[in-house]
């Protein structure tokens, strides 16, 4: 399956070689997408994630065609 991966803000700068798409067989969790898309094996605790524009926990599964995003705590307003 193909998963689209996006990084935002400081994470995009910290992961200059981060993959924008990964191919995988079988079920992957959000945290496993991080491991495959970055050079950082363990997803830092303060990293937030979403799947298809909805917040998700690192242990939740992703599906073929999903867009998975990783970003730091938000600071708008």
């Amino acid at each position, binding site marked *: 399956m193909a998963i689209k991966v996006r990084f935002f803000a400081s994470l995009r700068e910290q992961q200059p070689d981060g993959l924008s798409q990964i191919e995988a067989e079988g079920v992957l969790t959000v945290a496993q997408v991080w491991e495959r898309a970055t050079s950082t094996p363990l997803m830092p605790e303060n990293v937030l994630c979403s799947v298809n524009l909805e917040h998700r926990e690192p242990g939740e599964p992703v599906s073929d065609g999903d867009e998975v*995003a990783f970003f730091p705590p938000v*600071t708008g*307003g």
Partner: protein
Amino acid sequence: MAVQLHDESFDPARLLAEFETSLPVGSFGATASFVGTMRNHNEGDSVTAMTLEHYPGMTEKQLEEVIQDARQQWNIIDALIVHRVGDILPGQPIVLTAVCSAHRAAAFDACRFLMEALKSRATFWKKETLANGESRWVEKNTPG
């Protein structure tokens, strides 16, 4: 209900007036609004500019959900959230929230809720440029 993201500076007074005049005449008796403006200092440092990044698609969706949540908690006529993205200078508005309701309590409370909810939930990230030329990501929001 309206959510607007602007990549250039906006006039809060004009947008607030447009919001009010978009509603039926006489349908509301109270309007509460809040404007957040970029400061020229943060955490003891002089700040000369800022870039606001967002997650297109997700951010707008979150802001619409914030307004829906306000509608469920208070009896409001309508609500508005306007937020800047892109490059911002000190003195320019960052955010406008506004609520129209029949009476003042709902307008005040819901307007405060919109601000606090968007600050904690909506996918925006600030990067400051300091007077010494360095830049840094803002890591947390001020408490209030």
